[in-house]
């Protein structure tokens, strides 16, 4: 279903006219109201009136996570605090949090875009939305919540954690839509199995998963284990929160970016050069309707590809490929770029191990080492040492073939790799470089 037919199927030409108009308004406003942007524009020798077409966007300077931290907490807000009705912050893995604000209109826009997202995933008014994203400073919980209410669905604001209760409520209330991180969806499937509850027989029909990178194979596994359609949603608090882009259930291929509100670019993360559509690189977003916290060319560190091919759902908005990793948690092991999601796709192809893994990177002398800890499952458990060694060697070979990096596989007991109820921690880097 399309929530906002007018804007979601706007012909490209009209869409680009709208983008240019909104981009110019945004640049004028940030130049006038946020000293950080004025300084950056001045340094780059560009003025808002130099933006004559969308092509000119590439002359504007980038904004990075470091800029957000340097202006902690409210330095990049473009409106006085009395107009701000909501604050969120993203969990910084290092240093300070990144703080974002919303005006009443921003909250309404976000709810609209989240309603579009839910509708694109097949949710409707009569659905029971089981929202297991965390509520709080994290944008996941409240973002989905407001969208679900806007859609008119019944939302269960269960938040994360207490997984057994989640299963009971899902069953008793007849939840039809599940929203959480993909790793938590698998954890819920495991929990229900332990409880002797058949999650496949529940009323769940679709899950909307995001906030961490996942793979097609993980989608297959979730769809199989929960007997649902699994839809990828994307968003980040700096840009808005969940609902920046979403897959449509018709195609389940690529996430439509709501281009009437955000302008995406793909750049080479090393050089900053804008790459043509179809090439893989770092996603960059410019917000063009946000009031409290507009962002110009924000470097997400997420790796993706943009493509313009028309979609069978009839939305005209550009699609981004599912995020395949992050340019900053990308590991460089002996000079080879390794994305944890690639390891996952190897494990998904191997019978006998679970797709849960922990990568431990270390350095012995001058040589990087990569240890991949994987959980043995019942199917893969032989009582002979040589079978394990063969399984381990097969995984090591697949990793070497696919990624070009030498890894050592270590088998661990089932369910000993930490299941995070938010974002799964998959990498421990012990190198002191």
């Amino acid at each position, binding site marked *: 279903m399309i929530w906002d037919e007018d804007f979601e199927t706007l012909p490209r030409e009209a869409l680009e006219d709208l983008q240019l108009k909104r981009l110019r308004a945004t640049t004028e406003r940030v130049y006038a109201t946020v000293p950080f942007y004025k300084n950056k524009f001045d340094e780059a020798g560009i003025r808002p009136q130099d933006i004559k077409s969308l092509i000119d966007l590439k002359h504007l300077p980038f904004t990075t996570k470091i800029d957000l931290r340097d202006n902690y907490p409210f330095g990049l807000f473009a409106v006085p605090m009395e107009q701000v009705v909501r604050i969120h912050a993203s969990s910084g893995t290092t240093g300070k949090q990144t703080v974002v604000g919303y005006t009443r209109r921003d909250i309404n826009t976000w709810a609209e875009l989240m309603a579009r997202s839910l509708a694109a995933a097949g949710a409707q008014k009569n659905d029971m939305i089981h929202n297991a994203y965390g509520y709080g400073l994290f944008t996941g919980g409240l973002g989905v919540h407001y969208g679900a209410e806007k859609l008119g669905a019944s939302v269960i604001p269960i938040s994360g954690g207490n997984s057994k209760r989640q299963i009971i409520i899902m069953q008793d209330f007849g939840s039809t839509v599940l929203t959480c991180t993909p790793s938590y969806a698998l954890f819920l499937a495991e929990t229900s199995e332990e409880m002797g509850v058949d999650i496949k027989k529940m009323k769940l029909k679709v899950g909307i998963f995001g906030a961490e990178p996942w793979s097609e194979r993980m989608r297959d596994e979730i769809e199989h284990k929960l007997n649902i359609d699994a839809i990828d949603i994307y968003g980040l608090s700096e840009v808005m929160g969940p609902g920046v882009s979403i897959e449509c259930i018709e195609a389940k291929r690529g996430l439509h970016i709501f281009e009437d509100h955000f302008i995406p670019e793909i750049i080479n993360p090393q050089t900053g050069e804008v790459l043509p559509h179809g090439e893989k690189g770092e996603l960059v977003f410019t917000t063009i309707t946000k009031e409290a916290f507009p962002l110009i060319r924000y470097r997400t560190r997420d790796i993706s590809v943009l493509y313009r091919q028309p979609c069978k759902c009839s939305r005209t908005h550009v699609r981004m490929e599912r995020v395949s990793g992050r340019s900053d948690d990308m590991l460089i092991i002996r000079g080879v770029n390794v994305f944890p999601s690639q390891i996952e796709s190897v494990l998904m192809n191997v019978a006998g191990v679970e797709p849960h893994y922990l990568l431990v990177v270390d350095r012995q002398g001058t040589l990087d080492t990569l240890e991949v800890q994987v959980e043995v499952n*019942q199917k893969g458990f032989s*009582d002979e040492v040589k079978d394990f060694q063969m399984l381990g060697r097969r995984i090591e070979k697949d990793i070497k073939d696919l990624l070009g990096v030498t890894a050592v596989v270590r088998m661990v*007991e089932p369910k000993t790799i930490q299941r995070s109820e938010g974002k799964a921690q998959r990498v421990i880097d012990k190198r002191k470089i």
Partner: protein
Amino acid sequence: MKVEQISIFLENKPGALAEVTRILGEAGVNIRALSLADTKDFGILRLIVNDNEKAKEALGPKGFTVRKTEVVAVEVPDRPGGLAEILKILAEARINVEYLYAFVQQSGENAIIIFRFDETDRAIALLSEKNVRILEGQKVYTL
């Protein structure tokens, strides 16, 4: 003629073995024979117990990976060269022994050795033909 053995995957870390034996003890499962194959990272604990079902039921919910394997309990004369004679019979028939371990108790005059073969049925037939005594599972569990 076969004996059921349970195998448990263990990480090579302090306390792993203690945990398994504690769980079995609390479930009232008696261990009749055991062996531990170890590597740098993990071990495989193989057990003959008096009640396989009870052992599986106790360990499964605690997150242990447990598997049943068929092994053969062979009576071996308790004198120099006793084991060698049996292994010679197997070697001549080109039956491979994957692993073996000794049982704690004796059966009369004879020692009992638990064998895992690559071809279990052929090994049983061959040994029976050569008048080597093989113990029934039920007897082994309660010996």
